[in-house]
């Protein structure tokens, strides 16, 4: 009963809602990441599948290709008395380590943006 009352009160005070989103970089597809095999895939194949890396580093004589994508979601609840808003940003990162022979030695990847949601409530986790 109290929750229903609170919800009704919030609805009566609702002024506006806002949702916006921003992304940086191309999507890193899971199929593409899975196609890169340690010990067999070559540097040329990596470049053919993913294009030039966003960052290229040297790591103890090996090449480190880094690909990334950022996703930001903003939710705002604009009440007459008070405004709540929350910005959530997460990234997908892919690191491909290529040895001196030009073969993939290690692949490190994760997709954090899959679980990214629009949220407006700023409290809690």
């Amino acid at each position, binding site marked *: 009963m109290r929750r229903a009352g609170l919800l009704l009160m919030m609805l009566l005070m609702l002024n506006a809602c806002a949702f916006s989103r921003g992304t940086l970089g191309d999507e890193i597809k899971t199929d593409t990441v899975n196609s890169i095999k340690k010990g067999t895939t070559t540097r040329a194949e990596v470049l053919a599948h993913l294009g030039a890396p966003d960052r290229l*580093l*040297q*790591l*103890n004589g090996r090449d*480190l290709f*880094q690909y990334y994508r950022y996703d930001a979601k903003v939710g705002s609840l604009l009440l*007459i*008395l*008070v*405004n*709540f*808003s*929350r*910005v*959530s*940003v*997460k*990234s997908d*990162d*892919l*690191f491909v380590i290529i040895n001196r022979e030009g073969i993939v030695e*290690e692949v*490190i*990847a*994760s997709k*954090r943006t899959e679980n990214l949601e629009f949220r407006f409530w*700023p*409290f809690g986790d």
Partner: protein
Amino acid sequence: MWHKIVSLPLLFTAMVLPSLSGCNVARLTINTPLTADAVGFITEGKTTLADVVEKLGAPDSITDTEVGALVTYRFLNAKYSRVNFGWLAKPWSPVDPDLVFSRSGMGTDAFELLCDTNWVVTHQAFVRHRPEPPFTPYPF
């Protein structure tokens, strides 16, 4: 008697609600903030980077060092709150007065791992492990 009962809530409403009118509460999070418990499974000299990636996901950066690689996880938890007490005077003022109290807190942090050439974690530490910033608009 009923005048007193009605007038007190009305007075309270008239004084308190306008004071809340200019309230804003906002929060920015980048990635999932890591805690000491979340990284408690890492044992220096035993845990590999593959184990860490399996639980925490890919890091934000990997850089070269003389003894191996430096792996960094970055995250941010920023809070902002604002109250405009100028709203209290709005009904009686010919101008639009503002008396704003606001405060923001940044919990910028990073978790770093030093790995040897076999990708075994040799050292781990939080760069700046700050306490959670509160939602309090009082700036003093």
